């Protein structure tokens, strides 16, 4: 590994920050209801939508009404998507003549797409009709990202408002997320991707004759549009089973770059939106810096672990023992790792390599990225929510240690906020561990494992880390399309999603009611290096204390065994 190898990563991160800055500011304007350059074009559409759906733009909601609207919206989404998959056989745009999706798979997929997880226990091109992909999955790709965006904006309002009862209007936030942010970006991405050769067609699969004279089925479909939003909305649900490693999902280096760029773009911009909406831009940068630090730590460990090589491969004569199994040769190690680190950091779940085949310590980092709650930039909206909640916990301790009852950005942190924060951090972690322990100790759970020993444990841990934190990527090696896994991961996904969003809205409602405490020399500045270090420290310590034993028996033990040449 040389500087030459690392240069693309550096370039990538700099370019990302450069784009995030204006996008962050733009979103702050949009959600503050200010005019932007898009208002002239989008404004009329927005007003028509409000009139059609009977939404009063000026009407504000309490946090309970906001949460209620959100849950109704998502419940309808899950039911609609579930039914759509069951009746797809009778619907148009089904050239492959796919029948109804199995009920548990359909339920899992419905919950998965509505919760922005996009865990796929099925293989897309062999299960879902074009109509289901477009009218169901792609629509939820937009909506789930918009719901995430709305919830974080609602949380931010809690910090901005003082002695207020309301935190915004869910329908307005949802509409603006879609019209001003997600749709315009998706259109740009889809056009560029399809110009690079990502397929976008409604024709059925092609039956081709290969050079060896065998027949091959080449799956097609309206891919470019879905890929664009799956990346931008941190959804990650691929059109094809191999996801972003598939040549029709990512045919060129440019598309691959755009895909990893796209999946990071919104999550990276949101801390800056946070700063801009608060009118405390340094605060936004401090959160950004904490996330970036965690990202770089993880990236460094995974790169190190891959370039350490595999002693087993080295012994059989492979140069340096660099492991290429499960990696697309077009991308190579560095790009595969950048993608893997990014996709687990931002709760996307799109993949361009098989995480199952990475070195054990890389797998450990990826599980850790997800298990701490997807807060390293994280999913659209919910990632920032998670980090703000970690910041609340951090400031609770920091506040005590400077001798004040704790506060964060001028808001007092009292038992109610602490309870909600603890619920938000604890629920996904507890769910992940409990589900994994059930899977690993029951016959029905073990029957899906294709590997034994510590690697098998890693597979199960990965599956539930991914579902309980709404990432959606899979370690592979685990047959997840069984009744047991479909139902348990569905449960985990629901917990992961709503135990983040509801506490966040509750916190927002409670904070909005409070006074803003003015900054004095007695206030701890939450924008300095010390704050960033504490926040990063708290995230790592909470994660380490919760997952130390499980990760020791899984990836860490596997790593040690690989060193002496044992595999499973």
């Amino acid at each position: 590994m040389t500087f030459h190898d690392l240069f693309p990563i550096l370039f990538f991160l700099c370019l990302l920050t450069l784009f995030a800055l204006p996008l962050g500011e733009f979103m702050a304007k949009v959600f503050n209801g200010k005019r932007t350059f898009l208002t002239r074009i989008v404004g009329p559409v927005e007003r028509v939508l409000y009139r059609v759906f009977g939404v009063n733009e000026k009407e504000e909601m309490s946090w309970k009404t906001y949460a209620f609207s959100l849950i109704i919206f998502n419940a309808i989404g899950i039911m609609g998507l579930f039914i759509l998959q069951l009746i797809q056989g009778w619907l148009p745009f089904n050239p492959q003549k796919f029948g109804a999706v199995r009920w548990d798979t359909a339920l899992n997929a419905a919950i998965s797409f509505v919760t922005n997880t996009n865990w796929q226990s099925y293989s897309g091109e062999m299960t879902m009709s074009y109509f289901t992909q477009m009218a169901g999955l792609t629509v939820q790709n937009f909506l789930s990202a918009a719901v995430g965006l709305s919830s974080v904006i609602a949380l931010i309002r809690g910090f901005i408002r003082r002695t207020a009862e309301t935190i915004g209007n869910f329908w307005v936030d949802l509409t603006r997320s879609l019209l001003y942010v997600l749709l315009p970006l998706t259109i740009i991405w889809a056009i560029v991707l399809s110009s690079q050769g990502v397929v976008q067609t409604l024709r059925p699969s092609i039956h081709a004759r290969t050079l060896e004279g065998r027949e091959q089925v080449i799956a097609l479909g309206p891919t470019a549009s879905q890929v664009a939003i799956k990346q931008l909305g941190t959804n990650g649900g691929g059109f094809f089973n191999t996801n972003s490693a598939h040549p029709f999902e990512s045919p060129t280096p440019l598309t691959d770059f755009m895909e990893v760029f796209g999946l990071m773009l919104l999550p990276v911009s949101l801390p800056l939106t946070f700063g801009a909406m608060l009118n405390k831009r340094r605060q936004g940068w401090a959160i950004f810096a904490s996330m970036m630090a965690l990202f770089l730590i993880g990236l460094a460990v995974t790169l190190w672990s891959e370039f350490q090589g595999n002693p087993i491969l080295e012994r059989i004569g492979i140069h340096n023992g660099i492991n290429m199994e499960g990696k697309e040769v077009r991308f190579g190690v560095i790009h595969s790792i950048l993608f893997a680190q990014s996709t687990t950091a931002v709760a996307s779940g799109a993949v361009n390599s098989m995480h199952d085949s990475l070195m054990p310590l890389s797998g450990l980092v990826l599980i850790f990225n997800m298990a701490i709650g997807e807060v390293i930039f994280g999913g659209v909206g919910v990632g920032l929510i998670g980090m703000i909640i970690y910041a609340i916990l951090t400031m609770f301790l920091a506040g005590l240690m400077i001798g004040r009852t704790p506060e964060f950005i001028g808001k007092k942190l009292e038992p109610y906020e602490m309870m909600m924060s603890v619920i938000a951090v604890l629920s996904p972690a507890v769910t992940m561990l409990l589900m994994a322990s059930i899977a690993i100790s029951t016959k029905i759970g073990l029957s899906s494992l294709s590997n034994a020993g510590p690697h098998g444990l890693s597979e199960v841990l990965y599956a539930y880390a991914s579902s309980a934190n709404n990432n959606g990527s899979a370690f592979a090696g685990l047959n997840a399309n069984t009744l047991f896994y479909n139902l348990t991961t569905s449960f985990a996904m629901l917990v992961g999603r709503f135990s983040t969003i509801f506490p966040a809205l509750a916190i927002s409602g409670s904070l909005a009611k409070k006074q803003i405490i003015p900054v004095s020399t007695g206030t701890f500045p939450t924008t300095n290096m010390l704050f960033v270090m504490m926040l990063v420290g708290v995230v790592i310590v909470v994660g380490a204390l919760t997952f130390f034993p499980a990760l020791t028996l899984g990836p860490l033990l596997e790593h040690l065994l690989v060193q002496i040449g044992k595999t499973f």
Partner: protein
Amino acid sequence: MKEKKLRIWKSELMIQALKDSVRKLNPRIMAKNPVMFIVEMVSVITLWITVRDFLTGGDFGFNGQISLWLWFTLLFANFAEALAEGQGRAQAESLKKTRSEAFAKRLLADGSLETISALSLHKGDVVWVEEGDPIPGDGEVTEGVALVDESAITGESAPVIREAGGDRSGVTGGTRVLSGKIKVRITANPGETFFDQMITMVESAKRKKTPNEKALDVLLIGLTVTFITVVITLRYFAEYMSVSTTTPILVALLVCLMPTTIGGLLPAIGIAGMDRLLRHNFIAMSGRAVEAAGDVDVVLMDKTGTITLGNRMATEFLATEGVSEKDLIHSTLLASLADDTPEGRSIVVLAKERLGMRGRDIRAPVGASFFSFSVDTRMSGIDWSGHRIRKGAYDAIKDFVTAQGGTMPEKVRQIVDAVSQEGCTPLVVAEDGKILGVIRLKDVLKKGIHERISQIRQMGIKSVMITGDNPLTAATIAAEAGVGDFIAEAKPNIKLELIRKYQAEGHLVAMIGDGTNDAPALAQADVAVAMNAGTQAAREAANIVDLDSNPTKLLDIVEIGKQILITRGALTTFSVANDLAKYFAILPAMFIAQYPLLGILDIMDLASPKTAVLSAVIFNAIIIPMLIPLALRGVRYRPTMVSALLRRNLLIFGFGGLMIPFIGIKLIDLLISGLNLV
């Protein structure tokens, strides 16, 4: 006021605390502390397993030792709480003692008196207290004036005046009338007096948790639930990996991971904070008020009595042209001899000093008649052998000399202006038609007030001075004392308005008051300190009462409030940071038999898996009594930059919390493997 030195390990308190720590094992008492309640439940399970093994003839030695140390963990935690309670109770009892044997002369409806025990007095009763009698309960003087010895509660030997009406009408039970006779209306029922209030604050069973304690409890419960999940699921992960685990070892891991250090010491920290408050002679009405004191960022102070000594004092004589300073001083002295106002007395003192006759008794000349100050004339003086000497405000004296055919020299006007410009009060002295000169009266700051206010500033608290003076005078005093802001020409209700204004901006406001007209403002303030000598209305509106009636002590309350919070935060951080080392002790011990490779986690190189587990459990238990002194005394607090304070505490309790258990567990391991305990 110096804090009385705290002796933690006092034998008489220890014995009671030891008894109490066993009594507190009662699950119903334990349930108040969720973390320790869980520890108790798993300790019962472990004990049961040990007993079962013992009865069935199995190997119970190791489990027995784990079980033993788990119970020690509980006892140590209870001991900390009991010790803090004991100290508070001892403090309160010593204050209260005086009262139990007291009697009262209650005034009956027909006007006759009956003698009853002080303990049977109720609110609204009226009693007569005469010379030599103890005051039987908290109350308000409704008639008469008396000299009261309050040393029993304040430790101050100088007696104080208590009189009906005015702002000095409050009396406290347990004090004694030295001279005079007063009629006192009792204002508290038995069991509701300040002392009783204070005792409930230091007794865990009666004490209410403060919001901050509740919030911290939530965090600790969250950690506990997480670790319960970690340990239960670990059993199944281990089973899948063919590692067998036993319940006692899992319980040991759980208790080591749970925040038992802070969970065990948390009640003690809160109670010890109240004890400290008592030692500073404060009585708090709620723990919340004390914690809020740590957050206060604006404090309102009366100028008079808090910042300045209360009265202006003469500091300089400025003679006009053609008059010698000596003549001026002489005439002024004569004019002031009978002036009983504090200003007048200070003029006499200064004049004597200048004339070199300090201490010599000077009497008014025979035949002199005094002319005392009135609002109409605005001057005072003496008429003596045909001369009329007057001192007073510029305008009044000008009228006086003009009426006698004299004039006001330009020079005097200049002096007066100059003195006013400097924020002092000029008094002009004239003899008959002639102006002699000017006396400079100056507000004198209390000793040490400048340092106190600069400490307040360093804590991030803005001080606001309130005074009825004109803006010029106010500005001068404000600048001299170093206060952040001042309100001049203040009207009585300005305090309430000001507090509301600051609160609307999100500030937390503290104020000190004693007068009845302070009551509404005290009720509004977040931290309201009433002087014990103040009126009953003020004391009822306040949430903290200062028995010493010393307004500058607000700073002590702020420090105590901050100390409680810092101690809580520091021990939580310490407790959580400890967990890492415990993982490194217990996890390799659990896995090493099946996976020798995981021996790399055993970075402490402990003697055997059993000693490793036991060492971790022992460390977890004995760290509690080792931290009792810290919990009871509180983490040291010095006003400094918050970032520096945080960095220091993070270094000591965060980084220290990471490293100390590695050393501690290793040492314990050496010891128990040396003793061959397992």
